[in-house]
């Protein structure tokens, strides 16, 4: 099995990558501005919904129910999709998904040279690094979502699951377009930038025969696939090509068509602060004379099934990729997405990425959080992200403790010592006395500063008050002695 989640295997730890990001003032300004705009819009759109909490509840229950019967609904989706003329493929991991896609593209292209495919924005394809796989065999993928196009033309990585080029401002985008589209006169006006993108894309939409998409929802009851978007590029990619290949994570299946009435209310409001998605495309198999005449679905596992056994971990798979948690997260809002080293960034990325790769990489991500709970509050399917983060921190520690270097790690020794001290009141009181003597060396203006060793990491950025001269236990003892006398 080769489970790949973007470039997580090569990514530096979060604290290291975050330091680099924090030094980039332009990036921080861009991220702060963009997240503020989306957050404000989302809040307005949620406020005007009298039944928002009920919608969240139902959305969460539908997703939990589907995951509890995932095998049933996947088989039902497969059957109905095939009945409507689609073909369903199953992929255990990234390599298998990419191989299926490449084989299909080569099959339909015959002996054509310079094969091109147009793509609708799909995080799942970034997850399996499909563009790299296609390029490796000489197929040119063309991203058609404006932001994804900016990322692709700038040889960049997405930094947000909904707004992948959120870290770029329009001056930076103008420079990328000027260079890559050969338009030295282009201005930074949004109208000019979109017009440039439109003329660049229009031609490619019309000449390309194969489209690749992801899916927001796969409907078991009808075998339909649903993609929602704001630009219309998706609608073009889903209707103009002769062949359509759709990559779907197995957790994207929902039981019935009617379930969309919940998610099509919560997703756009959470993702971009829109009341409705400007484009909702839903298609079922193939229709002679209308749209693509060959339709293939690739159902992707890539580590997802390993999250099913544990109830808390399974909750992660309820995610509908709205990105609301990213915009709400005080950590993401400072660092942006690249620091996470995964195409899934922010709070959901911090729990999804490490779990998909069985904690082989992204081990620092569960710690990339203040556990403030803002992500849980905005999640439209009520994923308890803080609880999963704590669970994963425990997993990381337990795994580390199994290795010799982990056992000898100062943090582990300190924690073991603390556990021993807290178990016995005599040890605890003795430790308090020791600290009370020791802390005077570091006390300044009622705060402990510049603590040595690991504790220094805490006092460098946080206030820490010294322990008081008299503890409650001391006071209580004193009080009872006096009372007796």
């Amino acid at each position, binding site marked *: 099995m080769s489970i790949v989640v973007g470039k997580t295997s090569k990514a530096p730890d979060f604290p290291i990558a975050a330091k680099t990001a924090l030094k980039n003032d332009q990036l921080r300004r861009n991220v702060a501005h963009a997240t503020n705009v989306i957050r404000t819009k989302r809040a307005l759109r949620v406020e005007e919904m009298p039944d928002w909490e009920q919608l969240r509840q*139902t959305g969460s229950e539908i997703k939990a*129910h589907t995951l509890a*019967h995932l095998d049933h609904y996947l088989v039902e989706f497969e059957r109905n999709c095939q009945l409507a003329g689609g073909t369903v493929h199953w992929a255990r991991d990234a390599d298998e998904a990419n191989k299926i896609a490449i084989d299909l593209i080569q099959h339909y292209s015959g002996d054509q040279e310079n094969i091109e495919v147009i793509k609708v924005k799909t995080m799942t394809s970034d997850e399996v690094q499909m563009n790299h796989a296609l390029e490796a065999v000489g197929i040119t993928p063309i991203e058609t979502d404006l932001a994804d196009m900016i990322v692709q033309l700038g040889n960049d990585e997405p930094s947000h699951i909904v707004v992948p080029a959120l870290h770029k401002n329009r001056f930076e985008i103008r420079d990328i377009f000027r260079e890559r589209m050969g338009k030295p006169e282009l201005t930074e006006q949004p109208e000019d930038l979109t017009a440039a993108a439109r003329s660049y894309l229009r031609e490619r939409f019309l000449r390309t025969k194969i489209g690749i998409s992801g899916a927001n929802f796969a409907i078991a009851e009808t075998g339909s696939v649903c993609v929602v978007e704001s630009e219309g590029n998706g609608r073009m990619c889903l209707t103009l090509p002769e062949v359509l290949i759709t990559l779907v994570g197995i957790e994207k299946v929902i039981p019935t068509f009617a379930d969309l009435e919940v998610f099509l209310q919560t997703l756009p409001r959470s993702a971009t602060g829109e009341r409705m998605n400007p484009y909702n495309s839903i298609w079922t198999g193939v229709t002679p004379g209308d749209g693509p005449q060959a339709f293939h679905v690739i159902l992707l596992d890539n580590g997802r099934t390993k999250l*099913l056994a544990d109830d808390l971990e399974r909750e992660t798979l309820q995610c509908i990729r709205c990105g609301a948690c990213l915009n709400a997260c005080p950590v993401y809002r400072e660092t942006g997405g690249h620091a996470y080293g995964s195409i899934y960034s922010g709070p959901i990325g911090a729990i999804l990425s490490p779990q998909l790769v069985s904690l082989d990489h992204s081990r620092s991500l569960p710690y990339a959080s203040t556990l403030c709970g803002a992500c849980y509050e905005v999640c439209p399917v009520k994923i308890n992200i803080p609880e999963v983060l704590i669970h994963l921190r425990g997993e990381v520690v337990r795994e580390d403790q199994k290795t010799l270097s982990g056992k000898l790690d100062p943090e582990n020794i300190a924690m073991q010592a603390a556990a021993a001290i807290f178990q016995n009141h005599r040890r605890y009181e003795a430790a308090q006395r020791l600290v009370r003597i020791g802390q005077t060396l570091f006390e300044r203006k009622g705060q402990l500063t510049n603590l040595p060793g690991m504790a220094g990491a805490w006092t460098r950025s946080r206030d820490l008050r010294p322990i008081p001269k008299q503890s409650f236990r001391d006071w209580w003892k004193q009080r009872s002695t006096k009372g007796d006398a």
Partner: protein
Amino acid sequence: MTAREEILATIRTALHVDAANPAGSYARITAQYNRIGKLDRNACLELFLDRLIDYDTEIFQVATESELPAAIAEALTLANEHTALVPCRMAPRRHHPQARYQSRHQRDRRRPRRHHHLRSRRRRHWHYHPRA
């Protein structure tokens, strides 16, 4: 084992599926959100107008059908346009005498037009008289 069999087998092992009844469990999902609107016709219209304004739409409200040609003419003037596409079931005689009409075919041969962004949030005629 094919990928399909392997994925399904992994899922079944993980879920400890005990021939559970998905239909029964699906029926127990709570659905207390609003499925039927509670607004009456006037409130619906008010909300609709409010939303139109929110999306920067210029609104012309007319009381009777006879005022329609003038409103269309005003909208065209504001947009600095002299031609308009007309739905096939709208008889041309109802429109403004100064307006010219052209077929879709003629329109398509035209050069692309300039975009006009009507950004005013002002309502032109506020009074609305629902037909009895």
